[in-house]
């Protein structure tokens, strides 16, 4: 498992959530997901393209999303409020953006696309090359899930040399 690539996402989630919620968080669980992604509640997806390609989904059940959004907004927001969904998208943007900044400074170059609200109940199944890593962060407002499915994009030279694209998470 390439922890040097995953660690920036953990650090970024810790920094953004701890600051916004003004309380520490911890990693509740970390697992591999080979089945199709199942949305838990309010989910935002950010796509990456470039040296590393794929997507990251940031997912919270509706009551947790409302509590987290309320903390960040500094005012109580009902579950149904559009701002709750907006807040989840912005949190995804901040966490992923902070992680990407670290990876970019390490030499990876890619483009971050604006976050989209993920509305499908199920997402695409993981593939042999892209296996999803699911991180659950336990915060004072509830569980926050981050589902990461990324892979290195091979260059034309690597393809010509027959190099197989490296999975973000090495199954070995």
């Amino acid at each position, binding site marked *: 498992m390439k922890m040097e690539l995953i660690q920036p996402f953990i650090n970024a989630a810790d920094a*953004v959530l701890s600051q916004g919620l003004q309380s520490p968080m911890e990693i509740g669980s970390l697992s591999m997901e080979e089945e199709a992604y199942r949305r838990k509640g309010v989910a935002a997806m950010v796509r990456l393209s470039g040296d590393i390609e794929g997507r990251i989904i940031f997912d919270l059940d509706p009551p947790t999303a409302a509590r987290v959004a309320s903390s960040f907004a*500094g005012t109580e927001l009902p579950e149904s409020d559009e701002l709750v969904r907006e807040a989840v*998208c912005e949190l995804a943007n901040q966490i992923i953006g902070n992680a*990407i900044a670290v990876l970019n400074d390490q030499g990876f170059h890619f483009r971050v696309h604006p976050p989209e609200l993920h509305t499908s109940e199920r997402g695409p199944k993981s593939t042999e090359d892209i296996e999803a890593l699911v991180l659950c962060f336990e915060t004072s407002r509830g569980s926050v899930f981050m589902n990461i499915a990324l892979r290195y994009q091979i260059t034309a030279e690597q393809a010509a040399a027959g190099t197989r694209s490296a999975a973000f998470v090495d199954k070995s």
Partner: protein
Amino acid sequence: MEQFPAVKRSKDGQPVQYLIVDDSVFARKNLGRIIESFGGQIAGEAGDGVTAISEYDRLKPDIVLMDITMPQMEGIEAAEKIVQKNPEARVVMVSSVGYQENIVAALQRGARHFVQKPVKPEVLYEVIKYVLGEDGVVASAAGAGA
């Protein structure tokens, strides 16, 4: 939210006018709350770079707070276009994608400063005072001089 000594325009003692550019309504609202804690006023908002350019022309704000990753036109390109047409424009990039390459590109293309998201109010406050320079004054000093 913590309140800061108000930063006013030194030329007329009026609140500093801000244009907030971010595709996230939530981020715009949060930035708005922070700005109000500095005694500033929101002159306008935009959700993309194209709208930011037209809103700048219409409102001529004192400061633009500009996100980078946005639909239609990204923030760095919008900042460049605003500054090309209005060399006096003060654009501060506010983005989570704060890697060195992006920061350098933004500064080279006309932005005055870069603030990493999540925004810490105390950091933005210092940046605003720095970017305004002599055109801004902290309220207590303004009051003493009035």
